[in-house]
């Protein structure tokens, strides 16, 4: 691993963690704990530019950092929700990137859909009946959210092509 790659991955992880922490204070729809998931932009960039292994490591670091930074004591319930969502979406995303059938926007949409599915699976262990009420709405909102993050990640990758080239000094 070159120094440049290591540094860039560290910066990306830090930025994703900060986005994630800031986002948890914003409620888009009152009463529904739903986030657009802007930190997923970073995950998409890393998986497209470096690979699955790097994406998994950065996402896991991001989740742990975010859980430790949230006010109050370490919360098992919220941590398990974000962890299972991340595992589901990362598995879906890595398979989709390998298949190379869809573009980045559709891959982002499907992975955000799988993120919600993962969260609902974890939530069904914690609260059985509430999941049925939230499932349709959460699944539907995850589609425009995934499209948005996909478009933003695509724009970043298109406009910073020479950022990822390793130069010899």
């Amino acid at each position: 691993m070159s120094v440049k790659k290591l540094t860039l991955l560290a910066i990306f992880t830090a930025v994703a963690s900060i986005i994630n922490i800031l986002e948890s204070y914003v409620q888009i729809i009152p009463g529904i704990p739903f986030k657009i998931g802007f930190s997923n932009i970073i995950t998409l960039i890393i998986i497209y530019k470096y690979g699955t292994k790097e994406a998994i490591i950065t996402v896991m670091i991001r989740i742990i950092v975010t859980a430790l930074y949230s006010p109050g004591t370490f919360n098992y319930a919220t941590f398990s929700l974000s962890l299972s969502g991340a595992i589901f979406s990362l598995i879906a995303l890595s398979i989709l990137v390998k298949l190379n059938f869809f573009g980045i926007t559709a891959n982002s949409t499907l992975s955000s859909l799988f993120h919600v599915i993962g969260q609902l699976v974890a939530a069904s262990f914690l609260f059985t009946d509430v999941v049925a009420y939230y499932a349709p709405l959460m699944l539907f909102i995850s589609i425009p959210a995934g499209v948005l993050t996909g478009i933003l990640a695509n724009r970043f990758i298109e406009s910073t092509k020479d950022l990822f080239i390793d130069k010899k000094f």
Partner: protein
Amino acid sequence: MKKNKNDRILIGVLLIIFGGYLLITSVLEKKGEVAYVKVDNELMFSVDLKDGTFKPRPNEVVKTLQEMPVVEEDKLLVDGVIQTFLAFNQGIVRYENLYYIMGNLGIVVIEYKDNQIRVKEEISPYNICSRQGFSDKQPIICLPNYVTIEFNAAETDVNI
């Protein structure tokens, strides 16, 4: 270009499927008649939304107060005296239409008013459930406190 077309078709199909699913469920949705307060996925008590009838689970200890208690984080004070009566998922303190129970992080105050129910006060990082306000069909979830309020139509609705 081919990928671009694939993307648009996929996103369109997904929007139609989940939009339809959302539409159908929101049309079929009914207003709740009974609110069930659950702690750690276990029913603790229920409140009838029509008249506010309070029904605790069997063998639950309920203490009814005559004056309003003061909540200080994880302590409940009546006349300046700390009540050590509540524990997580154990014990209900009642004052008129206010119910005090102990969540994972501290005391959760639930209020019934005008056929609706809300979480009035709780201790959590983002206060999502108390900011949600009154509700009679959308479930209230206090994730850090393991407290949920769910709504159900009365059983008699099932018979045609």
